[in-house]
């Protein structure tokens, strides 16, 4: 790659889109640690903090934050380009809940003191955040959450349990949705609280998932005392805030890149198995390929909307459903053609690109998390097609 000058962070938002894309390519090429490309599993902080600190050092950590708070101030369209190029290069996801979720929420709803307290520590990596939303009986039905915060003098006392808390063992802070009014209707009476995970009474228990990986945790709260000042926004308005933050980022759940990656691995596997030219396989592959191409085209129409400054409606759910189910069908096909290799625990032939069993398993939760595809279809039915309740 020819040397492309990488402008100062503050200049990135002013670039033309194509130019910006080339800059991002040059940036990851120059800075991303090669040994972290396309990791087979979600990385822990011990592994990905190297990249986190590079991003922090270069000023690239927070693409969506306004410049005055230390971000790049990128438009949605540019953020998508950034993500596309990261994904193309195989850049691993950071422990990014502070960057993606908490930062924007504090910027929008926090007090000046909260901004001053928390934003800089995300930018340095001093605070690593995790997100405490789901509970054992509040998964798809998040508003049923029961973890409770009761005011006691200058503190909230928190009791309850969170589950599916991504990388909680790596985090030193957690943001919580907690119930602060038991008598209000379900979605009301929920507040947003910031909790130092070193506070006494917090227990983190990793969950081993089907990848045999401890990506998620249960987090238990037993009379955990949280200073009143750590409440963000209005009391009992936490639900609305958290929901408002689900902005254009929902489009990322539908990025076709994951399917594109899987498709290229399917192709490789087909070659290794000697079926790439088998006409029946070719027919299956053609269908998957066309689904991928049309999904890219559909995804593009949403990116175009963002470029035009439009906000995305609930129909963006389609992308998530289509992408995750395509991803699954691709990995299903891998198993079908792999013969006995389908059952191997480790990548076939020791080749990370032939990690077919791993991909098959990784593809499973895609249709469950981020709002299960059943929930997404409910949304489409009610909010897009206007079918009755």
């Amino acid at each position: 790659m020819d040397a492309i000058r990488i402008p100062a962070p503050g200049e990135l938002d002013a670039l033309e889109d194509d130019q910006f894309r080339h800059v991002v390519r040059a940036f990851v090429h120059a800075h991303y640690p090669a040994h972290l490309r396309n990791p087979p599993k979600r990385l822990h902080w011990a592994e990905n903090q190297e990249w986190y600190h590079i991003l922090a050092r270069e000023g690239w950590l927070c693409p969506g934050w306004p410049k005055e708070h230390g971000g790049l101030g990128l438009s949605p369209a540019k953020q998508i380009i950034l993500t596309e190029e990261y994904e193309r290069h195989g850049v691993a996801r950071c422990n990014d809940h502070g960057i993606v979720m908490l930062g924007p929420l504090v910027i929008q709803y926090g007090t000046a003191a909260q901004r001053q307290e928390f934003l800089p520590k995300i930018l340095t990596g001093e605070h690593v955040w995790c997100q405490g939303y789901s509970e054992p009986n509040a998964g798809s039905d998040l508003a049923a959450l029961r973890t409770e915060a009761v005011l006691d003098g200058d503190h909230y006392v928190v009791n309850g349990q969170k589950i599916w808390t991504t990388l909680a063992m790596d985090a030193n802070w957690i943001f919580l949705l907690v119930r602060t009014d038991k008598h209000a209707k379900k979605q009301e009476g929920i507040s947003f609280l910031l909790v130092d995970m070193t506070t006494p009474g917090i227990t983190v228990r990793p969950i081993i998932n089907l990848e045999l990986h401890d990506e998620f945790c249960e987090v238990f709260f037993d009379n955990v005392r949280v200073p009143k000042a750590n409440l963000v926004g209005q009391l009992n308005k936490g639900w609305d805030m958290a929901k408002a933050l689900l902005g254009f980022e929902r489009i990322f759940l539908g990025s076709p890149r994951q399917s594109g990656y899987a498709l290229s691995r399917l192709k490789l596997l087909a070659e290794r198995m000697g079926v790439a030219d088998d006409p029946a396989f070719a027919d299956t592959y053609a269908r998957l390929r066309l689904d991928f191409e049309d999904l890219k085209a559909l995804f593009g129409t949403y990116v175009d909307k963002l470029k035009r400054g439009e906000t995305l409606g609930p129909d963006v759910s389609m992308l998530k459903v289509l992408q995750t189910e395509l991803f699954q069908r691709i990995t299903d096909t891998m198993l079908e053609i792999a013969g006995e290799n389908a059952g191997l625990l480790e990548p076939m032939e020791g080749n990370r690109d032939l990690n077919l069993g791993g991909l098959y398993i990784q593809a499973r939760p895609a249709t469950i998390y981020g709002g299960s595809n059943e929930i997404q279809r409910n949304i489409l039915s009610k909010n897009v097609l206007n079918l009755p309740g």
Partner: protein
Amino acid sequence: MSAATADDRAESIRMIRDSAAAVAPPGADLGRIRALRFTDPGFDRAVLVQMGEMGWLGLRLPEAQGGAALGLGEACALAEELGAALVPEPLVAAMLSAAVLAAAGAKLDDVVAGRHYLPLAWQDRADTLDIAAGRDAPRCFVPMAAGADGYLVPVREAGRLALYRATGEARIERTQDGGNLGSFVPVLGERLAADIALDALLDEAALLSAAYLLGGMERAFAMTLDYLRTRSQFGRIIGTFQALQHRAADLKMHLAMTRASVESAAAALDAGATGDARRAAVSRAKARAAEAGLLVTRQCIQLHGGIGYTDQYDVGLYLRKAMVVANQYGSATLHRRRFMATAPEGDE
């Protein structure tokens, strides 16, 4: 394309959609379409003339040839609107004829005006995009041949493709939508061109047929949503049944994928895609539209239940139309294969 140009295009496409109301008035019933079914020639010559007057048949032609010099974005939008209204006048075939005559440098006023219907008789078998070129080879599956005022017939001569005007006694077969297809042995008349390239023009027709299917799917789906919102069984509006809701959501996704496929193909061609890039874009769209067109219309019947199986209820007309159009200018299988043969591997 700059933002200003994009806005201009969007406006131009909107205008074409609005203009379609001249032939397919919004909210109109399908009485005219029903009356023409299973008649000869299966369409209304006066409406074809009206379509000519609207500038539709020459939509794609340069202004120097009496055309409107509009893009495939506009042409697809028009085909979609007419598909939504099941307009039986052969828009796609007549546009193809106009384009062929223009490419031949031949006189085309009557065709562009819709006064003469001279379909291109280009195939000698089912499900092909290969140009039949034998001098005496029978031509078949000519759309709405019962209304043809003659034919345009390609003939291979000394390694080149010549174009003739021809006549022939057509054997007419009725189609499920109430139209017809014809086959005949050509009797060649005037030679209109000694060397003509038809592939790109057939590709445009294939893309327009995909857009026509898209319009029909959208309308059939809209009818189905209306039905789900109003029909009661077991004391409930049936649209409240989750299994039907999810089915409807699936159909919506098929529609969204089809629209993205067709519109991105049109945009690619308008942006100058040629050769394999053009073939891949068109095949992608037609493969999608053919498969989704059949799938969506039959699911619409299912979601309607018994009433959907009656001829008097309109949704069945869309099923029948999809049966006819899905494989015109190439089936899904043909286009899937052509896509794979022409599309570059992804950049993953």
